[in-house]
């Protein structure tokens, strides 16, 4: 037998069930928590980022703000039910990009850029019968827009392709609130009071509450009419290959065009900062879990080794070397940690399923109207694997070292 240490360790694992169970439970709870807590949070974060990124361009080129006076009704997205009519109200909007085709030609060869779509975008109202709702009205060229955002995949009824000048696509929540469906007619009103009656041809659901309740799509021509922009647009949306390079690409485009360029990362800075802060908290929680599990493993091993002193003495009298005695107990710890990892992983899966059930029964979250898909974070599952191995090695190494250093005479005589 080449590795008698492992043979003895495995026998100790099966023969000292009480200690084995205590250690296994301590480690598997740690493993489960290390996987579960980040997994549900990262699922939330990933879902939020996916939905935010998918429903808007990664980068948007605009011009600087322009202010103008208006007697049109105004609204605030957060007080969408209140419609205020103010005289000589000073409003602001992005200036027009008159030569947007030239801008597209200028930047189309920039590395990372995958697709571009010009559009008009302003706040307005959507009215059906007595129901009036504030909305973000986006005038698009559907063939180009669908290359920049995932709106086509978000259509749950009707269509967005072939969007005509008399057509409109509504978000699911807005459609519900207006009691509108495919084929119904709604009126939209721009910030300068221009109105247009349109037919609902599609309904989308992005899962992001802000989009589904406030975003509507019309054809670029309709948008230009409602916003009185002539043939101009006020934005160019861009999709890039690596979304996390959005800030760098935006910076390059800013230099190249001299226009205002916003990246999704800048627009969602608060959320991203919050996510990063939360990730830091997760690291701290994981540290506490590891520390408490390691303490309990160390104390159990100290007790175990105290109870095995005579046996350690007899093994040493038979010629077992110090490193072999250490290896017996470290192998025992590692064997238990491997078992605990598998149990902890299963436990984490159960916890995730349980948590997903709770969220699903609630139906929605703060930011999203759809329940995210909860899955085990591979990154943290790997981390938990190394946690279980290293924690047990670290926690068992001091007691094992003490065991190895036991004087055989003192150990045998008790």
């Amino acid at each position, binding site marked *: 037998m080449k590795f*008698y240490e492992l043979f003895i360790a495995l026998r100790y694992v099966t023969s000292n069930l009480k200690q084995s169970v205590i250690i296994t439970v301590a480690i598997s709870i740690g493993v489960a928590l290390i996987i579960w807590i980040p997994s549900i949070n990262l699922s939330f974060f990933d879902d939020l980022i996916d939905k935010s990124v998918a429903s808007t361009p990664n980068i948007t080129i605009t011009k600087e703000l322009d202010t103008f006076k208006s007697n049109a009704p105004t609204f605030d997205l957060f007080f969408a039910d209140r419609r205020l009519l103010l005289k000589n109200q000073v409003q602001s909007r992005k200036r027009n990009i008159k030569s947007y085709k030239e801008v597209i030609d200028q930047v189309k060869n920039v590395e990372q850029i995958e697709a571009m779509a010009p559009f008009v975008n302003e706040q307005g109202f959507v009215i059906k019968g007595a129901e009036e709702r504030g909305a973000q009205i986006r005038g698009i060229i559907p063939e180009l827009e669908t290359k920049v955002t995932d709106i086509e995949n978000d259509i749950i009824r009707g269509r967005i392709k072939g969007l005509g000048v008399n057509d409109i696509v509504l978000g699911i929540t807005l459609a519900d609130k207006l009691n509108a469906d495919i084929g119904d007619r709604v009126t939209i009103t721009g910030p300068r009071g221009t109105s247009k009656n349109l037919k609902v041809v599609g309904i989308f659901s992005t899962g992001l509450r802000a989009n589904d309740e406030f975003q509507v799509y019309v054809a670029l021509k309709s948008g230009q009419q409602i916003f009185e922009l002539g043939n101009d647009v006020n934005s160019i949306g861009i999709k890039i290959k690596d979304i996390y390079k959005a800030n760098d690409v935006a910076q390059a485009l800013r230099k190249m065009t001299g226009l205002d360029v916003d990246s999704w990362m800048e627009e969602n800075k608060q959320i991203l900062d919050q996510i990063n802060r939360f990730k830091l908290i997760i690291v701290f929680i994981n540290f506490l879990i590891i520390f408490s599990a390691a303490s309990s493993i160390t104390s159990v091993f100290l007790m175990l080794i105290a109870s095995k002193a005579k046996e350690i003495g007899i093994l040493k009298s038979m010629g077992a070397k110090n490193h072999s005695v250490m290896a017996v107990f470290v192998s025992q710890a590692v064997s238990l940690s491997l078992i605990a990892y598998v149990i902890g992983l299963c436990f984490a899966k159960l916890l995730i399923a349980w948590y997903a059930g709770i969220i699903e029964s609630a139906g929605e979250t703060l930011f999203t109207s759809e329940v995210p898909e909860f899955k085990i974070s591979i990154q943290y599952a790997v981390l938990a694997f190394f946690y279980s191995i290293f924690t047990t090695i670290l926690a068992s190494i001091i007691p094992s070292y003490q065991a190895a250093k036991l004087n055989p*005479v003192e150990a045998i005589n008790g």
Partner: protein
Amino acid sequence: MANIPENILLKLENINRTYAGAQPVYALKNINLTICKGEFLTIVGPSGSGKSTMMNVLGLLDAPTSGHLYYLGQETSKWNEKRKAEFRNREIGFIFQAHLLLPEFTALENVLMPSFISRKTNKEQKNRAKEILIHVGLGDKFYSKPAQLSGGQNQRVAIARSLMNNPSVIFADEPTGALDQKTSMDIYNLFRKINAEVGMTFIIVTHERDLAQKADRVIEIVDGNIVRDERHV
């Protein structure tokens, strides 16, 4: 290598063992002793006389404070723990009063343990372990654990274990102390049989005068000094 005749197993020169403390304990005082290969000797003495210390020093479980200990002609005081452990595994067998078997392992596994430690276990070694167990009268107890055996049977397993690596010397510390008279006699006869058949050296520490007197050589220790070294043959 010191110039020591080949028939000498152990040679002690001016061995002292002192336990430091507020009141130092002089457990062994200037011991000089020579033990030949194949001897069957007992070490006797009252409690606290130093006989167990003597056995631990001889068995390389404890290091003398001063003096020289030669094993098969080799001076051992400069040996590190690793070398001592290898030597114990190869050349020394221990039998203790409490059998000190590993309770999680069967009789056969306990006997095989010294061979596991030397990492030389093969089918031949397993057969040898079985033969030794049969030899000590436990042919039907290969797979019994210590808790399933009587005190005498466990002591026989411990004896079988001490023989496993075919050592030069067996140290037995009060091997019959916890056994009844008949079992004690059986164990003694077993030692004698092995000594006669294999020529293995036996050094038995005991306080039982009857048993001690049956040995070929009796060494008596009092207060850390050898006060008697008597040969019966």
